């Protein structure tokens, strides 16, 4: 919960300082790699509150994921680096491997039925429409003949 522990009003100041530092000091990648695992640990602590079978469903823990993302951003900025950057990306990839390695690729949530089902589903109402129109014409004709 490191990210949340930091009071919000200090943050702009920190970021400003980082900005200044970046111009002067440049991006300190070593320090970044030292600081990022802190975020990872915080995330791990939060994830252990969530049941393991829910780990592949983002909506179950989206707040923690956001917290983690923000944490990596902040840590990156503190050391004067831009976010995202390849090293941070590598770190996040590592976290993903740790928690979400067994998740299947998220297929599009909703899919059309296969063609064998879809085409009859469309064709039948169309044919019914034409048939119905013909039926009404026929019934009207019959009324005439009855008279």
């Amino acid at each position, binding site marked *: 919960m490191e*990210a*949340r522990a930091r009071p*919000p009003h200090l*943050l702009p100041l920190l970021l400003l300082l980082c900005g200044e530092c970046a111009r002067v000091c440049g991006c300190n990648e070593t320090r970044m790699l030292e600081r990022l695992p802190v975020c990872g640990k915080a995330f791990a602590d*939060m994830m252990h*509150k969530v049941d393991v079978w829910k780990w592949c469903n*983002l*909506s*179950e*823990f*989206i*707040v*923690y*994921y*956001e*917290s983690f*993302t*923000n944490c990596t*951003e*902040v840590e990156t*900025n503190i050391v004067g680096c*831009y*976010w*995202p*950057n*390849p090293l941070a*990306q590598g770190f*996040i*990839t590592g976290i*993903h*491997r740790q928690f*979400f390695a067994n998740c299947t*690729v*998220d297929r599009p*949530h*909703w*899919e*059309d*039925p296969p063609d064998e089902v*879809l085409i009859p*589903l*469309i*064709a*039948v*109402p*169309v044919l*019914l*429409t*034409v048939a*119905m*129109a013909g*039926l*009404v*014409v026929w*019934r*009207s*004709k019959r*009324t*005439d003949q009855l*008279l």
Partner: protein
Amino acid sequence: MKFIFTCRCFALFVLLNQPTPILPASSNLTYQPMDHEPFLYMLGRKKLLDAQYKCYERMEQLPPYQGEGLYCNRTWDGWMCWDDTPAGAMSYQFCPDYFPDFDPMEKVTKYCDEKGVWFKHPENNRTWSNYTLCNAFTPEKLQNAYVLYYLALVGHSMSIFTLVISLGIFMLFRSLACQRVTLHKNMFLTYILNSIIIIIHLVEVVPNGELVRRDPVSSHDFVFNFIFETLQLKASALPLEQEEGKMKEPKDREVVTCKILHFFHQYMMACNYFWMLCEGIYLHTLIVVAVFANSQRMLWYYLLGWGFPLVPTIIHAITRALYFNDNCWLSVDTHLLYIIHGPVMAALVVNFFFLLNIVRVLVTKMRQTHEAESYMYLKAVKATMILVPLLGIQFVVFPWRPSNKLLGKIYDYLMHSLIHFQGFFVATIYCFCNNEVQTTVKRQWNQFKIQWSQRWGRRPANRSASRAAASAEAGDLPVYICHQELRELGANNHDQEGAEIIALNIIEQESSA
């Protein structure tokens, strides 16, 4: 058939909502959301996190780069996911919809230079994707969206107004009553109900300050789609629950209500077109098949107009719930929509062929017999002949929206006018422009004036004069499709006297009434 409806619809709501500050392209995201932050921000944030999560999963699970030579590595640039790209190539994607002023129809570009490194912005030497086009044109599109929104409101209001008046006229004046008018009344009713649904949602849902997702919308449904999308977002709009780690799910009741409304709207749209078909069939039976007027059984028409549209609508609802049960059934990316649009288009085509047949028969008869009767029938059919293309043209022309900006704009305004004023056209052509209706109303007005002047003690001499004038007026105009006398007369008289005898009969009718 997708009507390319650019982000005017969701850009519209920037004005109606508190605008979200525009974030610079590929800059860092702002810090933690507070509890009281606007809904728009949170929704955009949720989408962004979702995209990030999926991106990292995707980057992990995609196979390594297969091509040869230098390439830029797959990356998450903070807003969107980019795959491995060969050196020297420009990668394109559609803009994300995280922010209200981003147009998902515009393109984002990211350049992979010859050395296999992603393009770095010269100013600060950091990796940069070009998101500038996403919100470059938003104010203009917003203005357009506003105009079209008010056009929709005005169109549907006028439609309801004129349709209610027409319905009143048809119901009030018993002398006009006949089978064809019954068909008109039913059709007017479907249009009124349709317009009511749309107006309620345009007025109530739209100003509630919700973001609307863009979707390429199908021809007739674009208005309703942006209406229902706001319902969807309303249903899913709830603050992050930071204790539990997940967002609250939308209440089931709201989601179901939304879907029921969608169902009802689809049903009304289908009814519109099927009642048009009923009109066409009725005329066809009357003229081509030569059944006596007023002697057909209306039951079958009611079945076709009100009952049959239930079939495709229910099939669509069931298959949608099974296969494509997205929130509020808003998505138009599915072919399941053709379950409803297919029969509607079939109805239009069948109707068109019926009318062509009618015209053919009438023209043939006219050539052969030179009967005044056929000419009068033709005039009566004229109304339907105008309306069917008018209603159907949107299905034909919609797929071809010109990409030129000015032409596209003209196209949009034209199509919107056609669609939203449909009820108005129907009422005007079938009621106000109908000679019979005009006569009846004028006569009634004259009688009213006479009674009014009588009450105030004017000379009664005017009475008979006015009455004769009214009758003479009535006699001039054809009452053909409705009254049976015509058919009998027409069958017996093959010369020019037919028309005069008909007129005389009518005058007798009116004087005895």
